[in-house]
């Protein structure tokens, strides 16, 4: 019951704020949504605690039949197990803090009720996604998240760039969704059901199934795994389908925090963990996941090193951290991926909202080259940004240290080629992550002020409604790691996870990661400190060095600055040809042919009309003549054809 309240309270808040926001006013809309979120997070945490620590029984909360057609049955149902409960607790808590923070951040906006309605809708969609008991309901939440993200990224719809970003996010996600939808269809085709319980129970019977298409034989689980992962790639912005994520910065900063931390991008990782019983029997698909994850981690980190927009740097770090999570999933350490998802949710929300606080202080300036020298003026923001960066950089004892190290250890311990590839990518990315995090910190807060005098005078700490959530998130970013490390990944992980994560009998990666060589455990920390040192050297000690490096290695610098030219590549390979094709279909196919036929018929009709009317001369003689001709014609017809 509490569980259902946790899921549906945000919907209630969203509906009230969305439909009655005008009537009740912005203040009341804020109050209602935040109260609903507080209720939801209380219920979410309570149901998590009662399940995991008070011996609650996992189960399914049935809400009613949705589709009942032939052999296809789907119910609205909330799945109550550790994986869902932990996600519900995390999503509701982080989203609540973001709601509260938004009161301060959005205080000057014109449509506050609409913003809070969308935020709550976003949260609700994510909760539907993580509590789904079947793939269709999961897809419902999945699309709901896509819709809400579209609405929020394009929240300032009068800005063309925001509209473009919203459309980009929606369209890129659609590509992934196609893979996901086909995957769901194949699951139904193979298992005859899309209920998780039925699927997981029948894993053994179908593990040898194959599809015969395109002249080849394909193992069923591998195909399904890859298709589901393509869906996850879209939502979780993995290499190739990542292009929407940096552009999503066009939305208000709390939206970025919500997208990057609690909702949306974590959906793909969650899907991997949710489908773990199936994926664990698809080694090929898992290797693919690990390789894409590792590549994304490294690729996004390289771009993060040269970006100058404070939110974009953090956006690429999200991309990179999601890569880590997929590496973990790809080596069978689903627990580690969810663990990193949890810690990441807190420190990434913290970083984004800290960045929001900086932007707020700097009169909406986002370029870190125009900041600097403000750490004394906004000490609290400065402190929480430090904590967030320490967690992101993986410094002991902050949360990121535990989760990131666990992933890298698991990747090494998996003892597979894809796992080792993920390990090395992750290791280099760890170095780069530390580097760009401190680059960001130093450029933003230290050195000489580079903003104009006017802006500097206005630098001020944010109000309490914004700083209190920051402090709470900072606490999470500090303590979550060592609080949960042993419960989630330790020897007794099954006591925590129950049946929500089922792995194959030969999957011993969690055990093996405890016994990796000492250098593997140490390397991330060492490289992290090296990255921090390099950043300090380049931006604090010798500030002229970055410029010299950039001009010395201009092609490399431009390559990174332009994000590996992915947007340009897609533009040339996909967008332009598609536009050309569409224009052809529009101008030739539609405007000329399809419109031409009815238009031609219409003009034929009106031309005939003009001709017909000409006969009508008004002269009796003509009329009588026409009649007689008619008689003759009729008689002829009659006599000839009778």
């Amino acid at each position: 019951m509490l569980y259902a309240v946790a899921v549906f309270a945000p919907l209630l808040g969203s509906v009230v704020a969305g439909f009655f926001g005008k009537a009740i006013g912005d203040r009341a809309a804020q109050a209602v949504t935040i109260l609903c979120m507080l209720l939801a997070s209380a219920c979410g945490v309570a149901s998590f605690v009662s399940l995991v620590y008070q011996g609650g029984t996992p189960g399914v909360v049935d809400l009613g039949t949705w589709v009942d057609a032939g052999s296809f049955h789907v119910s609205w149902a909330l799945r109550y197990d550790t994986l869902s409960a932990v996600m519900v607790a995390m999503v509701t808590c982080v989203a609540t803090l973001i709601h509260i923070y938004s009161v301060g951040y959005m205080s000057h906006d014109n449509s506050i009720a609409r913003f809070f309605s969308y935020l709550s809708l976003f949260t609700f969609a994510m909760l539907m996604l993580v509590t789904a008991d079947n793939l269709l309901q999961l897809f419902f939440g999945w699309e709901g998240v896509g819709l809400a993200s579209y609405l929020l990224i394009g929240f300032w719809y009068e800005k063309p760039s925001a509209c473009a970003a919203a459309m980009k996010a929606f369209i890129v996600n659609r590509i992934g969704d196609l893979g996901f939808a086909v995957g769901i269809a194949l699951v139904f085709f193979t298992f005859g059901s899309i209920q998780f319980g039925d699927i997981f129970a029948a894993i053994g019977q179908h593990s040898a199934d194959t599809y015969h298409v395109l002249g080849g034989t394909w193992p069923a689980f591998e195909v399904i795994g890859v298709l589901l992962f393509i869906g996850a790639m879209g939502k979780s912005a993995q290499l190739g389908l990542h292009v929407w994520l940096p552009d999503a910065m066009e939305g208000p900063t709390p939206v970025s925090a919500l997208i990057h931390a609690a909702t949306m991008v974590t959906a793909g990782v969650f899907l991997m963990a949710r489908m773990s019983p199936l994926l664990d029997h698809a080694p090929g698909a898992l290797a693919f996941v690990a390789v894409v994850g590792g590549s994304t981690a490294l690729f996004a980190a390289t771009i993060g090193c040269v970006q100058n927009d404070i939110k974009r740097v953090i956006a690429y770090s999200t991309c990179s951290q999601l890569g880590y999570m997929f590496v973990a999933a790809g080596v069978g350490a689903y627990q580690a991926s969810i663990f990193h998802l949890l810690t990441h949710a807190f420190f990434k929300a913290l970083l984004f909202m800290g960045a929001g606080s900086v932007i707020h202080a700097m009169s909406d300036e986002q370029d870190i080259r125009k900041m600097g020298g403000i750490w004394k003026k906004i000490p609290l923001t400065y402190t929480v940004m430090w904590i967030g960066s320490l967690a992101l950089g993986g410094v002991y004892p902050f949360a990121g240290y535990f989760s990131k190290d666990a992933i890298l250890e698991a990747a090494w311990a998996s003892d597979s080629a894809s796992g080792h590839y993920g390990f090395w990518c992750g290791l280099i990315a760890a170095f780069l992550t530390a580097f760009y995090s401190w680059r960001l910190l130093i450029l933003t807060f230290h050195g000489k002020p580079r903003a104009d005098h006017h802006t500097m005078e206005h630098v001020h700490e944010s109000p309490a409604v914004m700083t209190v959530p920051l402090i709470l998130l900072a606490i999470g970013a500090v303590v979550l790691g060592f609080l949960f490390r042993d419960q989630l990944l330790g020897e007794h992980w099954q006591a925590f996870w129950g049946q929500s994560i089922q792995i194959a009998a030969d999957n011993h990666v969690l055990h093996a990661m405890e016994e990796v060589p000492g250098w593997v455990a140490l390397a991330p920390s060492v490289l992290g400190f090296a990255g921090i040192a390099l950043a300090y050297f380049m931006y604090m000690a010798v500030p002229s060095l970055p410029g010299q490096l950039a001009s010395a290695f201009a092609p490399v610098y431009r390559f990174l600055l332009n994000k590996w030219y992915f947007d340009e590549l897609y533009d040339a390979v996909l967008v332009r040809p598609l536009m050309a094709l569409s224009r052809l279909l529009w101008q030739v196919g539609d405007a000329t042919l399809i419109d031409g036929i009815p238009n031609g018929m219409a003009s034929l009709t009106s031309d005939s009309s003009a001709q017909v009317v000409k006969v009508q001369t008004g002269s009796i003689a003509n009329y009588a003549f026409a009649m007689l001709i008619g008689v003759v014609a009729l008689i002829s017809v009659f006599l000839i054809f009778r």
Partner: protein
Amino acid sequence: MGGAAMTWMSLNWTLALPEIVLSCCGMAILILGVVSRGNFFRLGCMLTVGAFLLTAMLVLSGANGVGYSGLFVTDAYSVFVKLLVLAAATLGVVMSLDYNEHENLRRFEFPVLMLFSTVGMMLMASATSLMTMYMGVELMSLSIYVLAAFARDELRSSEAGLKYFVLGSLASGLLLYGVSLIYGFTGSMDFALLAKALSDPASASPGLVVGIVFVLSGLALKVSAVPFHMWTPDVYEGAPTPVTAFMASAPKVAAMALLVRLMASPFGHLLAQWQQLIVLMSIASMLLGSLAAIGQRNFKRLMAYSSIGHMGYALIGLAAGTQAGVRGVLIYLVTYVFMNIGTFALIIAMRRRGRAVEGITDLAGLGRTDPAMALGLAVFMFSMAGIPPFSGFWGKYFIFTAAVQQGMWALAVIGVLTSVIGAFYYIRIIKVMYFDAPDEAFDVRPASLSFVAGVGGLFTTLFFLYPAPVVAAAEAAAKVLFG
């Protein structure tokens, strides 16, 4: 002739009581009009309406049978047609009340002419002999010639009357020549005897066939089927509007009913031979009716083409040559009469500062200046275009169903296509009324016109709720011809 002829010798004259009573009323009103001082127009109209209602009651209560030695018949078919004709004529007289006052046409002969024309139509409905048929047609036509030229000081009206008279005389000539040919080749004018003589299609000689075509042509002019339609637009436009309204409804019903009876009963066995003529005329009428109407700016002229098109649709039912087809024709005529009369009532109501206007652009913005009138016209236009749930749709529905049952797909398809074209000009009127910038408002509408439009509108709108009585009566009437 034998024994059967002997029973016909008894005249059975009471069968024609409605016609006799109506004629007597007509003469009485005529006498009263002549002797009365002051203007008798209004009272004459009232008396005529009363005479029509009385006649309708007599028609309803009369017995069925054949009288006057086989010249005259009363059956379900004739009763159906006569009631429809009387209804149309009554509404036509009511419509003229106000118009004639305004246009200085308040002469008592007007309703009397309508009355005698109606007697002719009733005769046509009951005709079972070529001679009765000719008498009915002539009585109806002669009255209408005069009515068309009733606004004798106006050039357009006199021209309309003359045009109609000359072409009508030509048609009468064709008709009579056809009758004589038929009589010459079969030796009979009686429908029943003709049917018996022609029961073997192979026995039809070319001379007889030519005679049938001539009769068909003469009647086709009355229903204004292409190619005998040429008079219609000119006469409709020139005649006083109530006359146009009358001409477009009651005589069309009577002529079409007569045509159907003639083709179905004496020449019924020759179906395979005349069918293609009807098909040709039907297609040509539908095409011309819908195409030519597009270019029209005058509402009355538009209605002329519209009625040509509608008669084309009705001919589809005759072309099917089945009981279902004839039933379709009758239902079509009923729906046509009511929406047509309603439309004309509103056309008569188009009067600005005392002057009648008839341009389509004069309707601009009517939706704002007179919402009720605009709504009424919109209903009639939608119905004429054949859009459900209005009665016009059902009329077309029964017709097309009958054609499809007979496998006449091409005819049905052409019918649907032309009604799409027709929808263009009907709906353009709605566009003009609701989307164009408003013109000056029309004068206040007299109650008589609101009444007529209301009757037409209610029938058109509500027909779909309870069509059973009309459909059942049409079914019974059609059964007479095929039973």
